[in-house]
């Protein structure tokens, strides 16, 4: 193959690469960032499945939670749960718009729960467990702009709720 011929083959590839590489950076910073997190998450899937154990979102390191409940944090979490509008769709023991949450900490990893709280749009689009929940409940979980600190407090509230039942 002549060099000229080769360049004809290469050119479209370079163009594509060029466009992809130079793609949208400014203007959609959030999407870009999330896309990178996705890539990270898919590198550590649970064995044998496409499911990422922790889901997709800012929590990618194991939380290593102690057995005991931080009562003050749980109380704060309960307040945030109400204040952030979570009660519009969730109750502990019965199905409202979304699933009941009493046992959620026994059903999913705590990291997954925090990611679902903080990054619901992307979870619904990409995480198989979240997708299955959407199929069952029909209503996508809303993003209520919950911070990492607030999500951690809500998690503690849910951990406490699970313990109280037991």
């Amino acid at each position, binding site marked *: 193959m002549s060099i000229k011929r080769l360049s004809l083959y290469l050119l479209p590839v370079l163009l594509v690469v060029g466009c992809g590489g130079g793609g*949208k950076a*400014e*203007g*959609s910073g959030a999407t870009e960032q999330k896309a990178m997190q996705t890539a990270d998450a898919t590198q550590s899937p649970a064995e044998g499945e496409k499911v990422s154990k922790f889901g997709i979102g800012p929590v990618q390191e194991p939380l290593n939670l102690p057995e005991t409940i931080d009562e003050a944090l749980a109380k704060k979490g309960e307040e945030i749960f*109400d*204040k*952030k*509008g979570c*009660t*519009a*769709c969730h109750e502990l023991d019965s199905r*409202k*718009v979304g699933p009941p949450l009493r046992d959620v900490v026994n059903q999913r990893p705590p990291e997954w729960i925090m990611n679902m709280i903080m990054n619901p749009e992307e979870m619904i689009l990409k995480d198989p467990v979240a997708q299955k929940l959407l199929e069952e409940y*029909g*209503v*996508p979980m*809303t*993003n*209520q*702009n*919950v911070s990492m600190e607030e999500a951690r407090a809500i998690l503690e509230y849910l951990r406490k709720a699970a313990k109280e039942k037991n």
Partner: protein
Amino acid sequence: MSRRTLILAGAIGVIGVGALFMGCPPKEKGAAKAGATAAEKVYVAPGEYDEFYAFLSGGFNGQLMVYGLPSGRLFRVIPVFSVFPRSGYGYTEETKAMLMTSHGFIPWDDTHHPELSQTNGEVDGRWIFINANNTPRVARIDLATMETREILEIPNSAGNHPSTFITMNTEYVTAATRFSVPIDIQKGTFKDVPIKDYAKEFKGTITFIKVNNDPNYEGEDRMEIAFQILVPGYDYDLAHCGKGPSHGWCFFTSYNTEQAHTLLEKNASQNDKDYIIAINWKRAEQCINEGKYHEFPAKYYHNYYDEKKHMAFSKVGDKVRVIFPSECEGLAYFLPTPKSPHGVDVDPTGEYIIGGGKLSADIPIHSFSKMIKAIENKEFEKVVEGIPVLKFESVNHCLVPKACIGPLHTEFDGKGYAYTSCFISSEIIKYDYEKCEVVDRIPVYYSIGHLLIPGGDSRKPWGKYVIALNKITKDRYLPVGPELNHSAQLIDITGEKMEMLLDFPTLGEPHYAQALHADLLKDRIVKIYNLEENEHPYAVKSENDVKIERKGNVVHIYMTAIRSHFNPDNIEGIRVGDTVYFHVTNIEQDWDIPHGFAVMGANEPNALIMPGQTLTIRWVPKKPGVYPFYCTDFCSALHQEMQGYIRVSPRGSNVPLKWGLDKAL
């Protein structure tokens, strides 16, 4: 002649006639030739951002429009002085107060001159001000939310046209009378006098509004009337304030120095020269401090929107300080300027003051330093009502000769060139204003009014584009009936020759416009209102707190909205004769998820509620029955399910007041 030949001959005839028409200069329609190169310059790929935000006044629509440049795409309509059924502005209980005046509630006005706030003469991206012409008012819009946050009524005024122009650090915003009026200063009203007594009875006022620039101030009531200056009964038209060496001064054009009160197009066009009035506002501050003013009664509304309470409030002013130029020497001077001047624009250095003599072909440029010298040397022609008239030769830098016909407004590129719009000759001219030499001209379509260069009236323009804001549209777009949207045209000014790039339609009538680089603003835009900070007295932040209260015939419904339900969504126990207030809090905390609320038979439009916000719709049911309410803004996959019912029983009915969600009442 065969039939075929006949058709051919006919076709040639048509082409011939067509060609004749095409030969007329205006029919070339500008940039057709520019083609692909021009298209590339204005192309903003899907998902990409524009480089500039542009804010175009809407004239008789009472609004302010936000466009992107260079694409010319419309992003936002900001209601300012006009009610806005789309969002409920001016209709919801929270926003009605914004449009209160001493004449009562006014649903409309005519917006002309937006002005971006500046610090040290540079656009700073905090606020934009705009005037109401008809019932004199000045509004301040917060750029982070792009919502009107404050409206101040101007007493002792009419036709507030030379407004809103600001001083170099936004210390003051200007307002003034286009229409002089028989002000009864002692009473704060207009006198009942014969119109023919115009010259004797009618006066103008120039108002300086002080702006609270304190970044730590949390209130939205930032403007107050500092003082008014009583001036002769001319028509005051436009303004701009000094910068750099001329900081401390503002300049206002005037026409009708003939003091005509009828058929002004003839009777106010007699004098060869009218005046630019130069006001030394630092001197005015001294006179105020020295007590050289009169305090007169005046009733005027000051409305402002509290972003935490999500509600507008009104204060009513009851007096104003008025300075008489004859009692405050050094306050005001007249600069003779040909001929019925319209715009007055100060160059980025602050030295040159360019008047737009709209009936003249020469553009007068005055020199600030010459003006100061002339004042020192008392080079006065005469004194009118305590205001010295400086000699034209003593202040004039030059007349740009035969520049164009009907010059109106001027903007600057920061590279030593001025760009002036010429209404009658439908063109923009570019000239070296120091040398007074025209270097380029470009036709615009048609009859240009204002023009805009981003930052073009500041010390630091972004000299990349000029926008022509044209008054007449005619054949620029597909015809749509007798009424046509005004056209704007984007012109590249980076080269030696101006290059026409793009036409785009506007809303209402854009008069003046302003633009700033998107980097100054886009990362500071507010995306949601924090629900935790919502201090609205009828807000509900949690579904656990929804409730309904009856107080006699008044029913308050504390309601929430979130994808995809209202809580409560079943309500019973309302009676004919009740006045029902739906206080709806959108408890979403995600960007771009507003919910709209509408209830059947409401005599007011929907309320569009932003995340974290509370808005109230008033509803007076007239007949018994069950009526639906629903979300008007498609919010989610289950938006169609976002609905509810409210039951109305006859007057005196015993149906108990009940409400709920997800249960039978």
